[in-house]
């Protein structure tokens, strides 16, 4: 198996999966918008995007045995089809979750259906070439905008995937360029040769990203969108859309939640008891807090840069060169954790930077760059999908003479400002926390993030210890985030009291 073969297979898989996923993504988006209440809409959105937030590490570990059981006693060809099929299904679910996330985050197209209709009426008033160019532009920046960007990102996420492919791999299937590259490097390939070999995958990723980059670089900026439309809450709500939504979201829930839980319920319980009785609890907590610290640091850094990128795109029309510069900051992260980490490792081996090699900086930088594209998406959501009118009303009512109203308005203000940012930060931090590739390659020797420890536990096949540690690792940062949110909320309320 050569690199070129593995790239072709990975590319074909990612194109097929993204092309399949783009249709359910549109339907899921419609199903979410057809919710009767805001609360139902939130739940539908959470259920649809949930598979993307489960660590690839745990999913790969969970389905490793399933893959082997599927392939037991079969011919090599059947075995390859089974592992490719299972992997494809898992990637499709993840891809759909990413797509739904994007379709909710991205602003609607600038060209409306009415504009397109008007253009169609002009069909015979101009030269065919001019008309088609205009029609293409209206479609591209109109109805096709969200599906095209979603397609690009879904294909990229599938193309870059490494953890699950590596863990599921039996007899070299699923074929993945990222696993190939890792094998070649682990087989003794010098670092610089590995980096040289990345040119092919990187070019493929740029091609995959073509539609999204084209959109970001050339999209007209003068007519920016306001808040996401709430049209879907009333008239378009229909039973059919809800049924279709349920049918599409169920496989993801089964694959990523129900099946793993059913399969591992007893080990989870036993592992929990084991962990409670072990003196290693302290060490585990130190590792979890280490991971949390780095995740918080990388989140602050990445959101800081992301906000500058968002500001650059949302303010006055920018020159093409300026947009290229800001987009170039996203590229290292878009190229995946493995490529990014290897490149940073090489960079910190250079004479001028060698002194910083065993510090916390490479890991922090790696996590920041890896999560930056995701942070930009969250930043866009938080800055674009806000309701200035509600915030202004809350500010006005916060000076009310009645303390009950002041308290309620302070809470509302918190929700509309700090609370949303903390929630956005939590989502970004979650990605940093679970990125095992960056942590394993760039961590300094003084610290051990919990993800690398989890990989150690996985090595021994100690399901119980692994699951209990994974659950503790998942819950501790959430508890810290909940405490931070509570404190911040109380502080806002107290401030509002004292200021009045």
């Amino acid at each position, binding site marked *: 198996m050569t690199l070129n073969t593995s790239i072709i297979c990975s590319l074909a898989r990612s194109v097929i999966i993204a092309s399949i996923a783009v249709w359910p993504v549109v339907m899921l988006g419609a199903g979410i918008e057809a919710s009767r209440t805001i609360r139902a809409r939130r739940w539908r959105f959470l259920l649809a995007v949930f598979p993307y937030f489960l660590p690839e590490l745990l999913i790969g570990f969970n389905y490793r045995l399933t893959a*082997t059981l599927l392939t037991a006693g079969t011919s090599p060809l059947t*075995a390859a089809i089974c592992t490719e099929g299972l992997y494809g299904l898992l990637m499709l679910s993840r891809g759909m979750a990413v797509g739904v996330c994007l379709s909710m985050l991205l602003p609607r197209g600038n060209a409306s259906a009415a504009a397109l209709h008007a253009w169609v009426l002009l069909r015979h008033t101009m030269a065919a070439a001019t008309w088609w160019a205009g029609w293409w532009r209206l479609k591209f920046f109109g109805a096709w905008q969200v599906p095209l960007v979603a397609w690009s990102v879904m294909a990229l996420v599938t193309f870059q995937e490494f953890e699950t492919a590596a863990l599921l791999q*039996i007899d070299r299937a699923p074929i993945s360029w990222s696993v190939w590259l890792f094998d070649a490097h682990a087989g003794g390939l010098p670092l610089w040769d590995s980096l040289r070999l990345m040119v092919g995958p990187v070019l493929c990723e740029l091609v995959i990203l073509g539609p999204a980059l084209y959109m970001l670089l050339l999209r007209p900026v003068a007519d920016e969108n306001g808040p996401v439309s709430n049209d879907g809450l009333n008239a378009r709500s229909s039973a059919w859309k809800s049924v279709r939504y349920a049918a599409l979201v169920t496989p993801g829930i089964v694959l990523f939640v129900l099946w793993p839980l059913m399969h591992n319920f007893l080990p989870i319980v036993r592992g929990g008891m084991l962990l409670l009785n072990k003196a290693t609890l302290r060490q585990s907590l130190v590792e979890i807090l280490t991971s949390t610290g780095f995740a918080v640091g990388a989140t*602050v850094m990445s959101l800081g840069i992301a906000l*500058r990128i968002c500001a650059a795109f949302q303010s006055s029309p920018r020159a093409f060169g300026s947009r290229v510069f800001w987009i170039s900051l996203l590229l290292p992260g878009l190229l995946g954790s493995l490529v990014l980490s290897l490149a940073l*490792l090489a960079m910190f081996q250079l004479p001028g930077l060698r002194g910083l*090699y065993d510090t916390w900086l490479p890991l922090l930088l790696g996590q920041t760059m890896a999560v930056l594209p995701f942070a930009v998406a969250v930043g866009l959501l938080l800055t674009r999908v806000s309701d200035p009118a509600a915030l202004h009303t809350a500010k006005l009512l916060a000076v009310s003479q009645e303390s009950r109203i002041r308290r309620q308005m302070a809470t509302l203000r918190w929700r509309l400002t700090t609370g949303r940012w903390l929630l956005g930060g939590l989502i970004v931090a979650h990605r940093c926390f679970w990125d095992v590739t960056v942590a394993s390659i760039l961590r300094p020797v003084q610290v051990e993030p919990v993800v690398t420890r989890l990989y*150690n536990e996985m*090595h021994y096949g100690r399901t119980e210890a692994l699951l209990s540690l994974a659950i503790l690792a998942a819950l501790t940062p959430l508890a810290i985030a909940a405490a931070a949110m509570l404190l911040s909320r109380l502080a806002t309320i107290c401030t509002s009291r004292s200021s009045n």
Partner: protein
Amino acid sequence: MPSSAANKITLAMAIVLGVALFLPWLLHRNAPPDTLLVLYCAHDSVFADSIIRQFEAKTGITVQVRYDEETNKSLGLTNLLISERAQPRCDVFWNNQTLGTIRLKREGLLATLDPAVFARIPTPFKDPDHQWAGFAARLRVYLVNTDRMPASADDVAAALQANSLSNVAIAVPLFGTTLSHYAVLGDQMGLAGLKVWHASLRHRGMREVRGNAAVKDLVAEGACDFGFTDTDDAFAAIDAGKPVTMFPVRLETGQTICLPNSVAMLHNCPHPKAALRFIEFLLSEEVELALANSGSRQIPLGPVDHAQLPTDVVELRKWAADCISLEGAAEHHDEVLKWLTSEYTGQ
């Protein structure tokens, strides 16, 4: 973005960078060089950790450990040590086998130590140039699921001759002890013979998975009848109550494949005194006994008090007595790895 918000964000970013740069310095600025040791450890952390903590308690030296994270993630500690050649941060390399350590010796990365440090270890298991020594070994074994096939060495040998091996598992031989196994076979059969053997296994559909732990899982869960793995993985399945048993992999000569841990000090390492103390500790009877009594049941190579050995290890020692010398395997290691890399990656 309002300028006040931009300033706050810039301040937050500066604080994060400041903490990342100065906190480690603050934490370690007072640590005397002789009370710190940086260890790269390829042995499983669940077993190595208690040994390291024991050393810390005994000597007061703080050990900063970097473990190997399993084949899927790790760039390989050996590769990492080579890439850090210009500025080594590691003092001691505790490898879970010997071939990677021999590679480091060839790269000129290891320090030569006083022969007295290795005195306890028998000659076949240590470097003639006193740069590394082996201790606490594992064996390559067949792990057999007793619910799926009769459990005898003859049955395993017969099953290996069958037309279909789709119920037999082996780890991808690019890494770890399976690579060492292949290097031994390369020494025994010659590279051409090894290629024929490997092609035969693949042609008959043997399942290739990533890592010995995955082989163990396949056999323990009944997805495969048997597989090639190591004694420590086999004991993990046995201790978990799975219906499995094991037999040593024997070469045509009847010899077994015994893979010791190895330890070496890095040339120009930052903390040589602490490194020497750790190596002396690791090669002691106390540590070999502790590893023999751990879940991985490592086989002591130096003289130990037999009364303190668990029954399992007493049995393993009989198998290990037939082990092949790894000198030939070390000579063939690079050649075998080069061929395997070409076989698996086309490079």
